[in-house]
C-alpha cells in the first residue's frame, strides 16, 4: 500500500514539474536557511565548550560606582589574590592570576614572529584543560619557560622538535619551550592565546606590576577560578562580594562588588548595564532563531497553499479512492506520506545547498562552521526536523483533502469556492506580513549602520597608519625614528600614543581641579602621547595649542577633549591645573594646554567619552602614528616605511594597520547582522514570491472558464489582468498594514540600545510597502497576462 502511495506521489510530482519545482525548491530553500541558522546557533552555543571544566570555570568581575553610574568589568587589583587565597580558598579548586592578552615578538634563529599570548600562574593550563601534545604537562613550573600553541611552534620551528629550545621574547627575554599545546579552537574566548609564560616572569620583568602587589586601586589584572565541586557560582559570589570593600575600606566610596562571571556566559551574555547582567550576543541567537523559524514557516505555507490549491485535481482521486473503499484515515496517511516524500527531497536538496553555501556563509559570519557529517545527534535532529516539517506542511492539506465527499467531487459539482480560499488567503497574508517586516527591519539596520558610519570621527583617519611598538627596543629611539621617517619622504607627520587611535586602554580618577564639585567622582579616559599628536592625526585644536617640542614645560602639559571640558565644568580650561591626588602613585600637577575636538575612540554608536591626553614621560608608547605622504601612493609609502623600519629594527617583524580599516572593525558586528538579515530577507521574499507565483497559476487555471466567458463578453486583457492581480494585491496591502506597526515596534526597541541612532522616517515604511506591492504585481502579472491572453474558445470547449 505504501508503495502505491509513493508511486502515485512520485508520478504526481513528475507530471506537474512546474509545481514540483516551486514546491520542492521553495521548501529546500527554506530548509537550507533554517539548517544554516541552526548550525550557526549550535556554533554560538558551543562557544568555549572546548574547555572540559566549562561549567566550573568563572572569571572574577567587579562592579564599581562612579557618580551613580555602575560600571562592570574584569579588571581587578593584585592584592585581591592574597585576600581570596587567605580567607576563601575552600571555595576554589584553582585560582589563577592572568595578564591581558598582548602581542609579543617571538624569535628563534633568524625567524621572528608576532603573536598574542598571556602570562599565567602555574595551574592555568590545568584549569582550562589545555591539551598538551609535546613536552611536560606542568609547563609553567620553571620561571624561564614558555608554552606554545601547536601552530606557533610550527611557525617558529617547522619540523624541529621545539621542546627545550630557547625562544627570545620581545627581543630580550630568553625562555625555554617547555611544552606545546593543541591550538585552542576559534570559537573560544582564549582562541588568541598562542603562548603562555609564567606569571612570575611577568613580575620579574615589570617593576610596576611588582609594585601593584598591595595597590588596591590598580585594577590592571585578570583572575580566573575553577570552583570546588560541592558549591555554586551564586554561593561563592555571595561570600566574596564585599571582600575588596572590607580589606580596603578606602575603596568603599565606589562600592566595589565582586562576583563570579561563569564561563557559560562569557560569550553570549557579556553585556552589563548598571551592574546588572543584560543580555549580549544571545539576542542575536534569538533573532536568527526566530528568522529561521519564520523562513521555514513561509516555505511550509507555500506547500500548504499549493497543495490545497490543487485540491480540485486531487479531489477526484480522493473521490475514487473513497468509493473504492478507502477510509479517511488511510487518505490522511497517504497525503502525509506524500508530504514526507516532498520534504525528504527538499531536505536533501537543502543539505546540498548548505554544503555549497557554507564557505560563503562562514565568510559572512566570521565562523568556521563545518557540516557535521559524523554527528549522530545532528542526524537525529534532522530526522525530527524532517518529520516536524512534513507534519507542519502536510497536515492541513491532508486533513482538507481527505474531508472531501466522494459524491461531490465525482459528480463534478465540487468547487473549492469562497470558503476554501479563506485559509489560503490568511496564509498568504502571514507570508507577506513576515516578508514586509523583514524588509523594514533590514532597511533600518542598514540605515543605522550608515548613520553611524557618516558620523564625523573628529580626526582624519584616511592615510594614517599605526605601528605597534611594544618591545623595549623602541625605548629612546623615537626622535631618531621620527627624523628618519620624515626624512624618507613617506611620512609627513608622526607621533606616539599609549593606546591605539581607535581605542581607550586606560581610565584614571583621583584628580582635583579648581571648581571641582564636592564628592565628584571623575572618570577620565587616559592616553599618553608625544608632541605633534594632534597634528599627526589632524585633530582639530579648539582652544590653546598642541604639544610642542619648543616648550620644555609641555612634559607636564595635558590636552583635554571637548567632552572633558564640559564634564569637568571648565569655562576657560587653558592654563588651569589638573592635580593628581592618587593615593598610591601620585604624579605632578598637569597644566591644560589645549582643548581638542572629540574623537570617536570607542563605539561609534555612543557619545564620546571625556578624555585627557598627557605627555608621555615614561616611555609608555605602544604605537607610532604615521601620517602618510598624500602625494605618494600608500603602497609606495609603506614600502619605504618598512625599509626604514628594518634598518633600525632588523629583528622585529614589521607590522602596521591602517586606522580607517581599524575603525571599520567597529561596524563589523552590525554589518554582519545587516548583511545576514539582508540575505535572509531576500530569501524570505523569494520563497513568498515562489508561492504566490504557483498560487496565481492555479487560480488562473481554476478561473479559466470564467476568464473565457468574460473575454467572450468583451473583457480586455487589462480587465482580466486587473481582476486576477487585484485579489492578491489586496492581501499584500493587508499584510503591509499588519507588518508596519510590528516592525516599527521591534526596530524602535532595537534602536534604543544605541544612544547615537537614526531617526525612523515614515518613508522607510512606505518604501517597504511599495516594494512589496511591486514585487507582488510582477509575480502575479506573468501568470495573469498569460491567462488573459489565452484563446477563450479553447478554455470553454473543455467543459
Amino acid at each position, binding site marked *: 500500500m505504501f508503495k502505491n502511495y509513493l508511486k502515485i506521489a512520485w508520478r504526481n510530482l513528475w507530471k506537474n514539474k512546474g509545481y514540483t519545482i516551486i514546491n520542492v525548491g521553495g521548501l529546500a530553500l527554506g530548509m537550507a536557511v533554517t539548517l544554516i541558522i541552526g548550525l550557526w546557533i549550535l556554533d554560538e552555543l558551543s562557544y568555549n565548550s572546548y574547555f572540559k571544566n566549562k561549567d566550573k570555570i568563572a572569571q572574577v568581575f567587579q562592579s564599581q560606582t562612579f557618580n551613580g553610574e555602575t560600571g562592570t568589568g574584569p579588571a581587578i587589583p593584585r592584592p585581591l589574590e592574597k585576600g581570596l587565597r587567605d580567607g576563601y580558598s575552600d571555595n576554589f579548586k584553582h585560582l589563577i592570576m592572568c595578564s591581558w592578552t598582548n602581542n609579543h615578538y617571538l624569535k628563534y634563529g633568524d625567524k621572528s614572529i608576532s603573536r598574542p599570548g598571556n602570562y599565567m600562574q602555574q595551574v592555568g593550563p590545568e584549569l582550562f584543560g589545555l591539551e598538551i601534545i609535546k613536552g611536560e604537562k606542568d609547563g609553567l613550573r620553571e620561571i624561564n619557560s614558555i608554552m606554545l600553541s601547536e601552530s606557533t611552534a610550527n611557525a617558529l620551528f617547522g619540523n624541529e622538535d621545539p621542546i627545550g629550545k630557547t625562544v627570545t621574547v620581545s627581543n630580550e627575554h630568553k625562555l625555554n619551550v617547555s611544552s606545546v599545546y593543541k591550538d585552542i579552537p576559534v570559537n573560544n574566548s582564549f582562541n588568541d592565546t598562542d603562548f603562555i609564560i609564567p606569571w612570575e616572569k611577568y613580575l620579574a620583568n615589570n617593576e610596576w606590576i611588582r609594585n601593584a602587589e598591595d595597590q588596591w586601586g590598580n585594577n590592571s589584572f585578570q583572575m580566573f577560578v575553577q570552583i570546588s565541586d560541592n558549591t555554586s557560582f551564586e554561593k561563592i559570589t555571595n561570600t566574596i562580594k564585599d571582600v575588596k570593600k572590607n580589606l580596603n575600606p578606602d575603596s568603599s566610596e565606589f562600592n566595589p562588588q565582586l562576583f563570579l562571571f561563569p564561563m557559560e556566559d562569557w560569550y553570549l551574555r557579556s553585556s552589563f548595564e548598571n551592574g546588572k547582567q543584560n543580555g549580549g550576543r544571545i539576542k542575536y541567537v534569538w533573532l536568527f532563531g526566530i528568522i529561521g523559524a519564520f523562513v521555514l514557516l513561509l516555505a511550509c505555507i507555500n506547500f500548504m497553499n499549493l497543495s490545497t490549491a490543487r485540491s480540485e485535481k486531487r479531489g477526484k482521486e480522493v473521490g475514487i479512492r473513497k*468509493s473504492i473503499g478507502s477510509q479517511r484515515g488511510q487518505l490522511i496517511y497517504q497525503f502525509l506520506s506524500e508530504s514526507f516524500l516532498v520534504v525528504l527531497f527538499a531536505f536533501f536538496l537543502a543539505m546540498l545547498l548548505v554544503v555549497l553555501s557554507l564557505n560563503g556563509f562562514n565568510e559572512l559570519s566570521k565562523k568556521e562552521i563545518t557540516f557535521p557529517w559524523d554527528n549522530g545527534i545532528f542526524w537525529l535532529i534532522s530526522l525530527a526536523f524532517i518529520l516536524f516539517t512534513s507534519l507542519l506542511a502536510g497536515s492541513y492539506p491532508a486533513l482538507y483533502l481527505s474531508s472531501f465527499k466522494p459524491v461531490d467531487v*465525482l*459528480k463534478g459539482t465540487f468547487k473549492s469556492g469562497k470558503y476554501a480560499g479563506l485559509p489560503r488567503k490568511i496564509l498568504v497574508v502571514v507570508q507577506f506580513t513576515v516578508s514586509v517586516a523583514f524588509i523594514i527591519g533590514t532597511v533600518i539596520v542598514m540605515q543605522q549602520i550608515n548613520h553611524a558610519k557618516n558620523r564625523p570621527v573628529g580626526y582624519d583617519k584616511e592615510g594614517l597608519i599605526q605601528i605597534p611598538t611594544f618591545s623595549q627596543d623602541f625605548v629612546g629611539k623615537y626622535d631618531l625614528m621620527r627624523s628618519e621617517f620624515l626624512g624618507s619622504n613617506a611620512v609627513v607627520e608622526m607621533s606616539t600614543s599609549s593606546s591605539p587611535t581607535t581605542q581607550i586602554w586606560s581610565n584614571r580618577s583621583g584628580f582635583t581641579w579648581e571648581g571641582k564639585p564636592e564628592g565628584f567622582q571623575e572618570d577620565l579616559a587616559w592616553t599618553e602621547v608625544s608632541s605633534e599628536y594632534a597634528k599627526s592625526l589632524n585633530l582639530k585644536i579648539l582652544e590653546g595649542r598642541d604639544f610642542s617640542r619648543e616648550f620644555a614645560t609641555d612634559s607636564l602639559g595635558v590636552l583635554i577633549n571637548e567632552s572633558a571640558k564640559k564634564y569637568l565644568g571648565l569655562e576657560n580650561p587653558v592654563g588651569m591645573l589638573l592635580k593628581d591626588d592618587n593615593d598610591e602613585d601620585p604624579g605632578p600637577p598637569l597644566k591644560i594646554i589645549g582643548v581638542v575636538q572629540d574623537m570617536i575612540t570607542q563605539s561609534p554608536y555612543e557619545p564620546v567619552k571625556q578624555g585627557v591626553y598627557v605627555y608621555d614621560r615614561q616611555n609608555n608608547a605602544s604605537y607610532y602614528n604615521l601620517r602618510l605622504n598624500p602625494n605618494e601612493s600608500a603602497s609606495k609609502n609603506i614600502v619605504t616605511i618598512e625599509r626604514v623600519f628594518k634598518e633600525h629594527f632588523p629583528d622585529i617583524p614589521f607590522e602596521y594597520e591602517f586606522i580607517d580599516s581599524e575603525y571599520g572593525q567597529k561596524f563589523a558586528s552590525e554589518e554582519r547582522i545587516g548583511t545576514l538579515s539582508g540575505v535572509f530577507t531576500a530569501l524570505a521574499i523569494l520563497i513568498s514570491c515562489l508561492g504566490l507565483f504557483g498560487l496565481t497559476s492555479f487560480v488562473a487555471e481554476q478561473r479559466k472558464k470564467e476568464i473565457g466567458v468574460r473575454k467572450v463578453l468583451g473583457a480586455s486583457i487589462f480587465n482580466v489582468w486587473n481582476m486576477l492581480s487585484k485579489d492578491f494585491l489586496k492581501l499584500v496591502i493587508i499584510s503591509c498594514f499588519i507588518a508596519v506597526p510590528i516592525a516599527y515596534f521591534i526596530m524602535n526597541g532595537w534602536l534604543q540600545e544605541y544612544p547615537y541612532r537614526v531617526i525612523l522616517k515614515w518613508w522607510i515604511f512606505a518604501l517597504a510597502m511599495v516594494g512589496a506591492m511591486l514585487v507582488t504585481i510582477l509575480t502575479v502579472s506573468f501568470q495573469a497576462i498569460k491567462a488573459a491572453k489565452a484563446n477563450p474558445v479553447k478554455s470553454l470547449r473543455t467543459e
Partner: protein
Amino acid sequence: MLLQLNNIFKWVQQGGQRIFLLKDVNLEVEEGEFISIMGPSGSGKSTLLNVIGMLDTFNEGEYEFLSESVHTLKEKYRSNLYKEYIGFVFQSYHLLDELTVEENLEMPLLYKKVKGSERKALVADMLDRFNIVGKKDLFPTQLSGGQQQLVGVARALIGKPKLILADEPTGNLNSQQSEEIMQLFQKLNKEDGVTIIQVTHSEKNAEYGSRIINLLDGRKI
C-alpha cells in the same frame, strides 16, 4: 434479499425551503437482479444510486443491506461494507490518471488488504478476461473511452462484489462501445450472478435489465 430501502427521504435546505431529492422511496432488490433506474434530469436517479452505494446519506428512512441497517452504521463499518460487496462504475470512468491499467485494477485489492501474490493473480485474471493484457502498462489517457470504461468495469469487478452500481456507464461512449459494455453487463448478470443497478437515459440500454424503476422529482412512479 440483497437490500431494502424503506421510506427514504432526502432533502436540501434552500432559502428556508426544503427541496426534496428523494421522497418516500421504497425499494427491494433481490440477488441476481439487473435493474435500470430511469427518469428525466434532476429526478434523483444518481442520488438514489449514491444512497444505495452508501456514498451519500439520507435524512429519513431505513436502509438494510444484507440485513445490516446501514443508517445506524459508522463511516468505518459502512466503508468496510461497500468495500466488500459493492463495485462502482462511473459515467466518466474515474480511473486514476497517474496509475497504469494494471495498477488501477490492483487498487481496490490494496484497500481490501489482499496479499501481494494473490493480488497479482487476480489482476492477471481480470486482464485476461477482459482481453486487455496488452494494455496493462498503459495509462488511462492512452486508451479510448470504451477501453477506459472496460477497465472501469474490471476494477469494479475485481473485488468480487455482490452488487455493481453503474451511473450512466455508457454516457460518454459511442453506440458501438455502449453496446459492448451493456452486453458485458448482461453476461456478468446471467453467468456470474452479479446484481447490477444502473442509471440510464437510454431506453435501449434499459432493455438489457430485468426491471425498470422510473423516478420523477424524487418519487418512484
